């Protein structure tokens, strides 16, 4: 349980940083995708998600802590994290330079191969289409 809560904290920190990189407006666009991803893909429970993003846990960590944390994750979980972070970035159907930079920082910290990064991008695109199927001009 505690390990899963820590994973939840790390995931929501990763996702929040991506939302911050998107800018204030973009972070408004999909409030529930991060939690849905946590439960559907990372297999976390509602309780673990709520506890994981409690201020007492998440607010004491910096983004540097986040990079150290994701670097220590198993490879399979790392790829899920990167896929999810890219999904958050792609929800508005575009990727801003700041979002590319945060995704790159994550990928570098994970020491993930270019091919795996590409697969994560594909996975993110698929998820984006499933969560947000309406094509918008933005």
């Amino acid at each position: 349980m505690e390990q899963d809560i820590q994973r939840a904290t790390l995931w929501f920190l990763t996702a929040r940083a991506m939302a911050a990189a998107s800018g204030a407006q973009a972070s408004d666009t999909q409030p529930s995708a991060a939690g849905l991803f946590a439960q559907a893909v990372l297999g976390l429970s509602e309780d673990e998600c709520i506890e994981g993003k409690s201020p007492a846990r998440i607010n004491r960590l910096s983004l540097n802590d986040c990079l150290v944390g994701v670097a220590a994750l198993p490879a399979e979980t790392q790829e899920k994290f990167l896929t999810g972070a890219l999904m958050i970035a792609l929800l508005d159907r575009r990727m801003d330079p700041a979002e590319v930079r945060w995704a790159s920082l994550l990928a570098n910290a994970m020491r993930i191969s270019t091919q795996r990064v590409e697969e994560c991008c594909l996975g993110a695109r698929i998820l984006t289409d499933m969560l947000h199927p309406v094509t918008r001009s933005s």
Partner: protein
Amino acid sequence: MEELSSNFGFLEALDRRLSKLGKQAENYVHSDPEACLFKLRLMVEMMAATLARVTLGNAMPAELGMTLGELERSGILPRHEADNMHAIRRDGNSAVHGGTAPISTALRRLRDAHSLSRWYCQSLTHSSAQPEQPFHVPTRPHSEIGVESQVAAAERLEDQIADRRNRTREALLLFANDSERSAIADKYRTELDGLDSAALSTSEPSIDAETMALIMALELEQLLEHPAFGRASRDARREAEAQLNAVKLRLDEQEATFREARERLTTEKF
């Protein structure tokens, strides 16, 4: 049926059909809670359709839940109003499909619809001058022995359901509220700038922006048939479908338990 003094009279000037549905819902709330919920769901559907037409143009999804999601993502529907609309949608769906509901359920959704109507008027008229419209609980036609204890039990159940739905919602959200989002996003943006500076001096970015742009530019069907990305895309879609469906199924099961609890309550002897 004779119409009572309505909580929805103020809608008359903006949309007579909505006002009428609100009045009908009020009239049914004690005698036929399921009909009340059905009318309220229609109200929400009409509100959502109008908001979508005005703001999203032709890009309106066919299904109400998706329309609400799209309105919320577009920043048109605030979280509180979205929660109220979803609650009416879910309970209205249940009523349409034969589910029974205690009067308390219908009363709560009626109150939600009243609050929504005020917000809706303000949004469409771009006016914050809409006077406060207090909600008046429609008078119960007559009292029966045991009704009070049943109402109390129904209220407790509705509180539990509301708590459970709030918890589900809380688990899904990235930020707890707007002020938290704003404060945290500022903090992270500052940290990101610092990390960027350090990263730029040491390594090249690993994410190829051009590949990302290509993947985003392709239609999904093109992506699934793409010679380089096709197989991985199809695998990813199958896996994602299974994962998201599992969560959807769990949420559906949760709603089903609410329906069952309400049905038990309505058939229980007090």
